[in-house]
Structure formats: C-alpha cells, structure tokens
C-alpha cells in the first residue's frame, strides 16, 4: 500500500490579485469623505465649546489648550490619511469574483466570489446624490462583516456593475 500523503497542495500559478489593476474611485468621492471629517470636527469643536461655557473657569488653561490641540491634531491626521489613502481605494471585478481594497495604515482587500452573492443594491447618500455618485452594496449570506460595499463611483458605473452582478446571481441559481 502506498503511503498516502496530503499536505498543503495549492496549485501554482493561480490568478493573483494585483493592487495595481484595481479601478480607483471617482475623485469627487474625496469631497464626501472630507465633508464627513468636517462634520465630525464640528461636533467635537461644538462639544468643546459647550464644555468651556458650562464649566466655570476652574479648568487650567494648559488643559484646555491641550484638548483643543488634540482635537486639531486628530482632525489633521485623519485628513492627511484620507487624502493619501484615497488612491489606495478601488475595486476590481474579475470573471468570478469582485474585490475592494482600501487602507493606508492597514491595507485591506476583501473578495467575494460571484457564486456567493445573495443580492446587490445601489444606494446613494444626500451629498453623493448631489455629486452624482452611488455605492454598490453586495450582500452575501455571511454576517455583516462579509458584505462588500463599493462607494464613490458614478451612478452609471454603479448601475452597470449592479446589473452585471445581478446577472451573475441568476446564473448561479
């Protein structure tokens, strides 16, 4: 009897996912991202202002300054990361799967095989609508963590992507 072994046998030259081949998001989407940061900033600054007014000047100035500085630093940091990380964001549709990549500090790629997609929808926020942008949300049967969302592409692109993916779903059913 031969000695049967079955170690990690992974076929060579499987197609790889190259970060360079991804399609970038529409540049207008940067506006959406920055407006989001602005809103967070306004909330933080507003909260800080209310805090200053309500507290009756018992707090030493040095602490107030350091809080203000911290808020500013965080906002600047997030803005820089968003700006530099933007070219990293992108999606890739291959024959048999769809992927999304993002992240400057932690780079992430998520791929969903087309034969696992449950349904696809196109959604649009208020600001995105004004800019003519849409998101494509791809749902699998997994928990929420395995749902893939591709934001910041033009309405036209989104509709095309949706109908392509929907077509694939009916193929698999």
């Amino acid at each position, binding site marked *: 009897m031969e000695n049967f*072994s*079955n*170690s*990690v*046998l*992974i*076929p060579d030259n*499987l*197609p*790889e*996912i190259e970060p360079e081949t991804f399609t970038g998001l529409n540049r207008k989407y940067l506006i959406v991202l920055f407006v989001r940061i602005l809103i967070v900033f306004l909330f933080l600054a507003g909260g800080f202002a209310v805090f200053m007014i309500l507290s009756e000047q018992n707090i030493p100035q040095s602490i107030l300054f350091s809080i203000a500085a911290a808020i500013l630093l965080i906002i600047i940091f997030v803005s820089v990361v968003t700006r530099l990380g933007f070219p990293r964001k992108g999606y890739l549709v291959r024959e*048999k*799967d769809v992927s999304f990549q993002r992240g400057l*500090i*932690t*780079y*992430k*790629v*998520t*791929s*969903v*095989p*087309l*034969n*696992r997609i*449950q*349904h696809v929808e196109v959604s649009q926020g208020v600001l995105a609508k004004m800019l003519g942008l849409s998101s494509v949300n791809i*749902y*699998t*049967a*997994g*928990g*929420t*963590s*395995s749902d*893939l969302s591709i934001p910041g592409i033009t309405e036209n692109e989104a509709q095309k992507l949706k109908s392509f993916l929907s077509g694939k779903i009916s193929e698999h059913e």
Partner: protein
Amino acid sequence: MSMSSIDLSKPTRQSPRGLILIFLFSAQKFIRAFWPILLVLVFQNEIFRNNRTILIAVLIFLILLIIHSILFYLNFFFYLEGDEFILKKGYLRKQTLSIPFDRIQSVNTKQNLIQQLLNVVTLEIDTAGTAAKELKIHALDSSVSNEIQEQLQAVKKSDQTSQEPQTQQPKTEKEKLLLQLTPADLLKIGISQNHIRAGLIILAFGLQIFNQIQDVFEEKAEQYSSEFIEFISNSNSALLTFLVIFFLLVSILFSLFRTVFKYFNFKLLKKEKSYRIESGLFNKRNMIIPHQKVQQLNWETGPLKKIFGIYHLVFKQAVSGQNRQQQQQLVDAPGCLTQHLEKLKTDLFGEDRLSEVPRIYSDNFYFRRLWLLFGWIPVLLTTPFFYSEWIFWGGAAIWLLSSAGYSYLIIKKRYFRMNNQQIRISKGAISHKWEQMKLHKIQAVEFRQSIFQKRRSLASLDLMNASGTITIPYIDEKVAKKIYNYLLYHTEISKKSWM
C-alpha cells in the same frame, strides 16, 4: 403517511390546548403594552375607586381577550404546498407567509414550563439569506411539530440526491443516541465552566439590584455606602479572603444552576445525515442539525475541562438577517468526550487528513503586538498619573510580566492546518479552542496588512462563512496570498452548496 393521521398538505390549526397559551400570550402582550395607562386608570380615575366598576372592566377585558384568542386560533393555518411551507394568520388583517424549502436553515422547537404542562411546543423555522424572516408557531401539538420537522428534513434530503431514482425510503429512520448527560456529567460541566464570566454576570446583576435599592432608599444610600466603604477598608485581610471565597462559591453555584437548567437531560442523537439535540429543564429545546447546514465546528477545552477530559462543542449554523444582531441561540453540546468529538468530526468532515499536515504558527511578531496591547499600552497610559508612587512600579512590573505570560500562551496555541479541502485553526490562552470548516463554505475572504506587518512581510487573513469569521493572524505574506488565491479559486470552481 398511512402511519400517522397527520396530513400536512391540508390546512392545519394549532393545538386546541394552545388556546390557553394564545390567551396568556395576548394578555401578556396587552399588559406589557398598556401597563402605564392601566396604572394611571386604576390610581387616578375616580370611577375606578368603585370595586364593581373594576370588576366589570376586568370582565370586559377578559371577554375581549377570549374572543381575540378564539378568532386568532380559528384563523391561524399552516400547510405544505408544492415546495413551500405556508402560514396564514390574522382575522382583521390577513397575512400569508410562504417559505420555500430550500431557504430553510433550521427547524427547531422550544418548550417553556406552561407549554410543557399543556404538551405543546413552539416551532421556529429560520431561513437564510437577506430576505430573511423568522417564522414561529407557538402552540403546536408535539406530534405535529415532529411531523413538520421530519417532513422538512425529508424534502431536503431528496433534494440533494435528486439524480438518483427516488426510492420509497422508510420514513422513520432509526435514531442513534450519541451522547447523554447524566447528573454527574452536569456537575462536571458546571464546575468546569468559566467562573470569571459567571462572576461578571452576577456582579452586573448585583450592581443593577444595588442601583435599584439606591433609588428606593435615596437619602439613606449615601450613608450606607460610605459606611460600607469604611467597613471594607477597616476590615482585615481575613474578611476580604472570606468575601473572595464567598464570591467564588456563589459564582460556581450560579454556573451549576445555569448548566442544570440549560442542559438537563441533554441528548445528542444521530441519524444518517443529521443530528438532533434535546435538552433543558424549564425551557426545553429540540433542534435538528443537518450535516449540510453546519458551517463551522468549534470545540474547546480548559484547564478544569481537561482534568475531566471533556470538550464543549458548538455547531455553527448560518445566521439569518434578523438574528444577526440578536444573540443567536447556541447549538452546542457540552461535556463531549474525545471519542464523541472524533465521531462528530468524522461525520462532518470525513476522515481526518488535517493531522497529517504540518501546523503553521503565527509569527513571533504577533507576540510583541499582543504584549504591546495588553501590557505596555495600559502601563504607559497610567504612568503619568501614578509615577510618583513606588507601589505603582511594582504593580506595573507584575502586570508586564503576567501580560507577557498571557501573550506567550496565546502565541503557543495560535496555529492552523490546511489542506485543499478544509482548514482547522487552534487558538486560546488559558482555554484551548479549535475551529474547523470546509473550504467551500467560504462566503468572502479578506487580506489585511498593516505598515508594521508589511515591514516584516507578514499579513493576516479573515475567512468568512455564513456563521462567522475565522481569523489567521500574522503569517508569512506569501503564504497568506497563496491561501487567499486558493480559497477564491476553490470556492469559485466548487459545485457544492454551502447550505
């Protein structure tokens, strides 16, 4: 069909005994929704001072409720039609629910104390996918619910083997008892539970009660609590030790009771292609687990469990959209011996080829990352506040040492084995956990790499299936990419259904 008098293709009502249950449920719902108004009416309205008025009001209310219950009962039907389970309900607003068989994830039953007295069960049908709805029938004769469970099972089985000629197979396939827990087993399981978790539950519960008491005795509470603190700080270490031991005992007792309530008369039964679990004292559950529907198998053992040689095993099934947010009910089997575990693994995954494959451990850099997270960051964050006290530095040193030990335990257990069909990961710190899945159950894959990992050519992987995520942290970037590509390839060419 000849054996049983139950014909599910005809519209069937719930059990007549269920009327009582419907009545109680409706009363409960009504009172829950309107109790503030009821209170106001009873206490504020002059008319209700009169005893007779109260009596009449209650009577009218009861009569209305009885009429509602009867109408609800009479208009509640279910039946099987084609390949769908159909439910019709409502008398003012009629509602029809239909569930295609191939969408059904699980068919389980539950039985609380009242239902046990009435000999009826709640049947829950859970569906997969995003258009998810959960269907519940609260007052079924247990014989009817068994029939439904059987039939939905049978249909699914014939679905799978549709190529083969449909043989008229005997309907009642023999069930084999795999595991039954005796009171002695329950004792072992209860003792070897995680008492820290139980302790935290009790603590949270105690704090809540304490808060409520505080609300009641508002003005005196301050006095009491300061007295209590004084008492604690003045008392000697013997008393403190006593308190700790007392707390531990309460935790163990609590774990024991929870175990007995949940796993009383636990039975794990096996058919050719499915398992059935029966257990519970006041809340009985009866769950059918088709092998096909198990997305992932988890099992774990801890220091105490190891002494008894037992494992706690969890069948992870697909979570439907509605249940995603809620805590899903665990389909689990505590107190499995090694032989049970091996049997179940063979049933679900076939012969174990994974142990022939070498373990791949997470990189040692993962240790540094964990130590930084558990050890250094808490110490560095607290240093500015306490650096002047010598006792802090002693505590910090102990903290750093023990967190290093903890991180070491984690990294020693963190490995995985994978072949071209399956993957099994090992993890844990004090307890030891394993997770195993077939690769075609994958729903999505994620590759993660921070700039710190990139410098060392490391990366992490997340493998998502319909029941959750399996994480492989800090492995060689090249290996991670290879696995990533292989998983996609494997899932994309796979003809096997994930559910």
